[in-house]
């Protein structure tokens, strides 16, 4: 009997962990206690285990060193930096300005407000990275306008919640930082890998809205012209845009001499800066060369774009580490809030307190997970998990399918931090052994976790929209029409098509790994290529892993397979 228990410690510990966690006591401490209790039991049972339990008391004294490891983790420094940046931006009114202006720009076309919501959602995702911020702003500003002009309620709520969750997958999202850390990969690579799938997902949302606009136009009507308080003036915006592109393009040649590959980025920066300076001068000197619409669009859109460049641009061209990017973004966010006269002591205090609370609970979940893993690995739990997962038929596809279904279901009930800290360390080594690229796996999991923000009844994006959408019928103040309340069921149903699109996108990333694999870049050290290329021709007939890139029988456009 003792032997039976001792040799099955891993499943016993895992089951009791599930029970401990479900009890509802804070995750960090339940995890740690589970680890410690079973550490003691494990030491006691070790003699009966015929070698499967490798726990002894001296091992427990490695705990301080493990805690030290958590504390000195420089990757996770990015968490407070990006959190702080997001909260400052969320309270700075940037989202409101963007929604107002972009809504005005696109409003007069069919589905325009929905397009504006997706666009602004993507832009907010790339700056604030906070789901709450986007959904709340859209629920307060765009939703009433959509309802006023007769948008279908499910389309309106669905597009808002889905666009809000983009913050989870578009860099610099916290999910990607934590995933990169747990997978042992660089955050920069994770950002690079996630960029295209995330942008494509935003594009897919726009495509979906476009389809509705074409085939069900009554669901997404255009705004009447009198709703355009900024007036027309698209022409002058287009002219301004053309000038900016021209300046950028010409200066690109000039920069190319000195800066080489980074010239296009610098050129774009100069073009944008020039047009912003012009709009600013136009407004201050009252020249009125630009229409009000054009001037407003430029003034509102460029600061967040500059911030995106400051953070993501510097990370992507290798000027800054993700942590530094986060810190500069935080300073940039403070500057933006200050420029709007909204950076005051209460805001700073509030933002720092929220950042501290989030950091503290996240880091303690990690500490708890480290205590748990000491015991779990000590009873060979990782080998048990590996047997379970490699036993799945279908090789890489089977593995990915099972892992994704598990994470999708868990995502209904538990937060992504727990999934990342508890499950990812168990899954990652198995995936690595199967030849699955870990960044690719991380992006797939990130996409999947994003879905959990949207799935009823526990999706956070849905909660946020619920708490800002009208709960009782109200009289619209512009049209004087009576508008019915938003039912919770409408929010749930609205999310469903977008969950479908997200699942499709997960499948697309699985089917086309090159969407992610380009992070390795086209530059491959020639020496390694020369060694590997003969292997590609002779030993790689059926799509076995080559150069560490998972080839699943599809052409590896972005993967570093280079013909000499």
């Amino acid at each position: 009997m003792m032997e039976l228990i001792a040799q099955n410690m891993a499943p016993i510990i895992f089951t009791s962990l599930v029970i401990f966690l479900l009890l509802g006591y804070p995750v960090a401490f339940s995890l740690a206690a589970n680890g410690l209790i079973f550490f003691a039991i494990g030491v006691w049972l070790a003699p009966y285990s015929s070698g499967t339990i490798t726990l002894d008391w001296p091992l427990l004294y490695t705990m301080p060193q493990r805690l030290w490891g958590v504390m000195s983790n420089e990757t996770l420094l990015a968490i407070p930096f990006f959190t702080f940046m997001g909260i400052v931006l969320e309270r700075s009114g940037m989202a409101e300005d963007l929604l107002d202006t972009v809504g005005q720009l696109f409003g007069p076309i069919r589905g325009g407000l929905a397009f504006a919501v997706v666009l602004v959602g993507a832009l907010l995702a790339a700056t604030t990275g906070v789901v709450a911020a986007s959904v709340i702003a859209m629920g307060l500003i765009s939703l009433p306008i959509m309802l006023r002009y007769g948008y279908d309620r499910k389309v309106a709520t669905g597009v808002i919640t889905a666009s809000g969750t983009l913050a989870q997958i578009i860099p610099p999202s916290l999910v990607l930082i934590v995933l990169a850390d747990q997978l042992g990969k660089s955050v920069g690579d994770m950002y690079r890998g996630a960029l295209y799938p995330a942008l494509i997902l935003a594009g897919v949302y726009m495509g979906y809205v476009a389809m509705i606009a074409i085939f069900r136009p009554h669901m997404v009507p255009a705004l009447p012209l009198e709703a355009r308080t900024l007036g027309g003036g698209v022409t002058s915006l287009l002219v301004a845009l053309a000038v900016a592109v021209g300046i950028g393009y010409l200066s690109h040649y000039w920069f190319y001499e000195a800066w080489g590959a980074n010239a296009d980025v610098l050129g774009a920066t100069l073009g944008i800066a020039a047009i912003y300076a012009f709009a600013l001068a136009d407004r201050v000197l009252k020249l009125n060369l630009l229409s009000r619409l054009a001037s407003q669009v430029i003034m509102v859109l460029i600061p967040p774009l500059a911030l995106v460049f400051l953070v993501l641009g510097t990370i992507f061209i290798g000027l800054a580490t993700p942590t530094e990017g986060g810190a500069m973004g935080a300073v940039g966010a403070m500057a933006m809030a200050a420029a709007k006269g909204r950076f005051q002591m209460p805001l700073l205090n509030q933002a720092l307190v929220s950042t501290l609370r989030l950091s503290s609970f996240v880091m303690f979940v990690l500490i708890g997970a480290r205590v748990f893993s000491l015991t779990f690995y000590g009873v060979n739990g990782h080998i048990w998990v590996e047997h379970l997962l490699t036993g799945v038929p279908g090789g890489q596809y089977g593995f990915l399918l099972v892992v994704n279904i598990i994470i999708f279901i868990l995502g209904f009930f538990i937060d992504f931090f727990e999934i990342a800290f508890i499950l990812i360390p168990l899954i990652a080594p198995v995936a690595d052994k199967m030849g699955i690229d870990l960044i690719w796996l991380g992006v797939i999991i990130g996409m999947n976790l994003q879905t959990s923000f949207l799935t009823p009844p526990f999706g956070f994006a849905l909660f946020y929209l619920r708490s800002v959408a009208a709960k009782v019928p109200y009289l619209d103040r512009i049209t004087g029409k009576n508008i019915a309340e938003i039912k919770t069921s409408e929010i749930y149903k609205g999310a469903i098509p977008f969950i479908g699109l997200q699942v499709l996108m997960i499948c697309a990333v699985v089917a086309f790994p090159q969407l992610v694999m380009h992070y390795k870049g086209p530059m491959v050290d020639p020496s390694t290529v020369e060694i590997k290329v003969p292997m590609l021709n002779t030993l790689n007939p059926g799509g076995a892993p080559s150069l560490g890139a998972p080839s699943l029988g599809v052409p590896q456009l972005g993967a570093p397979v280079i013909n000499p």
Partner: protein
Amino acid sequence: MHAALGLSRLIDGVTTVIGKSVIWLIFAAILISAINAVTRKLWSLSSNSWLEAQWYLFGAAFMLGAAYTLKENEHIRIDIFYGSRSRRVQHWIDLFGHVVFLLPFVTLMAWMLWPYWIDAFRSGQVSTNAGGLLIWPARAILFAGFALLVLQAVSEIIKKIAIMRDLIPDSNPFISPAEQAAQGVQDITDGAEVRK
């Protein structure tokens, strides 16, 4: 019970003051990181001590803020079962968790971390990175964080018993994620008023 509640108030007071002060360490870490990034690129001015200072500061913030976070009931739970129980059952779960999960864990860690920082202090150990910082202050913070958690756990147990015996009001009740969302909206709209 009266004396115990007094002790609990004292502990809460200490952890709150510390929790509300350490937020500035995060602010300092942000500024140091940003400045360091700029000087590193522009003038190649940087040193490991500045890099290490960032995680020292952040480490101090989240370790010393953990007790405050516990007091504010902000450590994350999986509430699928918990959230649907009566408040009475929730109290029992909390009390059980405080006594069986939390207190033994944090006590053991504090006990193990004491020699860990003392050793570093006595030997004057310095980080192996060139120009690195002294190691003991960070280890002392690690110990202090867990020591504060031990105190806070004691305070939470006292308060929980008092609440269950109706001696004090239930100050930080569990709120569901939906209510949390509403709370978040409140915070942001409050922020909107602040900035006017």
